[in-house]
């Protein structure tokens, strides 16, 4: 009865416009629920980077004796990379999630509501934020438990958490663009090796000034991923390094801007609705 009255009112004043913030809230809630209910998405994103951390820190420990190596704990050095790897999983997670929505028709369901495009993008990234935060906390706690140093202290840990989430959202929005473009989960997965190339051609294993091969050093210098890793690393090894942090956050924001632009553009192409 009340619903009927409300509907009569709605019919009289026209369909209520749903606020973008309300929509973001509903979509974010769904995105987080989807993420935490898929152990198959969470477990590898934690286990794989930690596995690589274990292998690297034991196998490459000898590198610390190189003249000019910034720390005598390779575990501390390698931990920066672990944070960066988390972002790769964010890319895949966000991309596959939207691709699944398109394949299963859920995307059409949302299209048929008064959905606002930006709300979809922001809402979809909520799951990535949660995943990024869980990853960052886990990596930091495991690293510290095994004797990694954290020169910047508790405040540094918070900054690392913030940078992790920012990087996850940035790469997540790139993944979203890829998922929207292809509408195909397998195609999104196909980008995984590409992300690894980006990671390997960075300062992931050695500080840039200790890379002897010229072309490698040049590529690593041009690769923004180097600066993201070095941002994490600076808080672990050096303490508060303004330049490293400025570069890391600068590139993180630039990637986020690029990702959001790409996601918005692909969403517009994907959305043919009138």
């Amino acid at each position, binding site marked *: 009865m*009340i*619903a009927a009255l*409300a*509907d009569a009112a709605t019919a009289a004043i*026209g*369909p*209520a*416009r*749903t606020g973008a913030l*309300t*929509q973001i*809230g*509903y*979509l974010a*809630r*769904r995105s987080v*629920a*989807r993420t935490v*209910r*898929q152990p198959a998405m969470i477990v590898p994103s934690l286990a794989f980077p930690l596995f690589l951390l274990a292998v690297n820190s034991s196998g490459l420990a000898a590198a610390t004796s190189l003249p000019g190596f910034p720390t005598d704990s390779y575990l501390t050095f390698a931990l920066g990379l672990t944070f960066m790897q988390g972002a790769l999983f964010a890319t895949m997670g966000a991309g596959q999630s939207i691709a699944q*929505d*398109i394949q*299963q*028709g*859920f*995307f*059409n*369901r*949302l*299209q*048929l*509501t*008064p*959905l606002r495009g930006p709300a979809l993008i922001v809402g979809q990234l909520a799951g990535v934020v949660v995943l990024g935060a869980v990853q960052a906390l886990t990596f930091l706690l495991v690293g510290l438990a095994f004797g990694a140093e954290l020169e910047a202290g508790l405040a540094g840990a918070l900054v690392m958490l913030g940078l992790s989430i920012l990087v996850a959202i940035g790469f997540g929005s790139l993944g979203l663009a890829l998922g929207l*473009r*292809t*509408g*195909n989960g397998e195609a999104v997965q196909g980008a995984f090796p590409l992300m690894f190339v980006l990671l390997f051609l960075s300062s992931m294993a050695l500080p840039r000034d200790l890379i002897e091969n010229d072309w490698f050093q040049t590529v690593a210098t041009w690769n923004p991923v180097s600066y993201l890793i070095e941002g994490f690393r600076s808080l672990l090894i050096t303490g508060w390094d303004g330049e490293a942090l400025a570069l890391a956050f600068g590139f993180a924001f630039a990637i986020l801007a690029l990702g959001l632009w790409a996601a918005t553009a692909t969403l517009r*192409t*994907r959305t*043919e*609705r*009138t």
Partner: protein
Amino acid sequence: MSANGGASDNGIEVEGLVREFKKGPRAVDGIDLSVAPGEIYGFLGPNGAGKSTTVHMLTTLLPPTAGSARVAGHDVVTDGAAVRGAIGVALQEAALDPFLSAREHMRLQAGMHGLPREQGRRRGDELIERVGLSDAAERRVGGYSGGMKRRLDLALALVHEPRILFLDEPTTGLDVQSRTALWNEVARLSAEEGTTVFLTTQYLEEADVLASRVGIIDIGRIVAEGSPEALKAEIGRPTVEAEPVEESDLERMRAVLSRFGEAGPAARGQVAVRLGEGTAELAEVVRALDAEGIGVQNLEIHAPSLDDVFLAKTGRRLEGAGDDDPADEEAASEREAVPA
């Protein structure tokens, strides 16, 4: 015709609607139709006929290549948001998130439509109960049966009390029980709430039982339109099929029956004739056969079905037409519907 109807119009008016896909034929090739408020319109045709493409255009998901359509008084191209506000849609895929429960789906759908939280909750619970999913409301949809998914899909389409409901092959793949339950609910919506229903189907029975008017579509064109009764009456005359006791009598039987109408396709060892005058002639048929001394093993009279209408208009049978076509053009055209 109420093509100029206001926002309160619950009908659908379509003129010369065309949709072409890249590298493909015209999936929809100039369709005209009109659906009156409160009517159940059955859009009947085989796989690949263009049914889903039409629904996608009428629900604003796909822009038409040419032609125009007004849904609930709003133009689907220039006033998409108003159309979406007035319609509820259950597409072919039963688009659900396997990781969410029925209640979570309801909450999201109500929220996206802008219903206040408390009202959305009440409406959601009411709909979940109406489609018989109360006991499963907290379970994740991934574990639902096909019938349960379809029911939830229908309930979701009704959250914002739409005036027009689009159902794209709502019962394909459902068991008889689920199908009947869905038919009852759709019939109730139309009868009690005055909801206009546009329903696509490849099942003759569904169109016959449920629709007050049927449009038959084949290869992107409407080949016949009218109430099921009128369409069948147009084909008109029933067919009589007879089988002699002795197979050697088959030719004599054929000769006798040919006096009553033209011969039609029949099973082996049988004769089929479309009666010239209708059912009243049946008694004379029996008398004539008796007078010739032909023993009758079996004698059946078939009222014309929508399949006969389809056969008369296209030269093919509808039943099984889609099953012979593994390519499934409709699905292929849907994949192309959105540029990859």
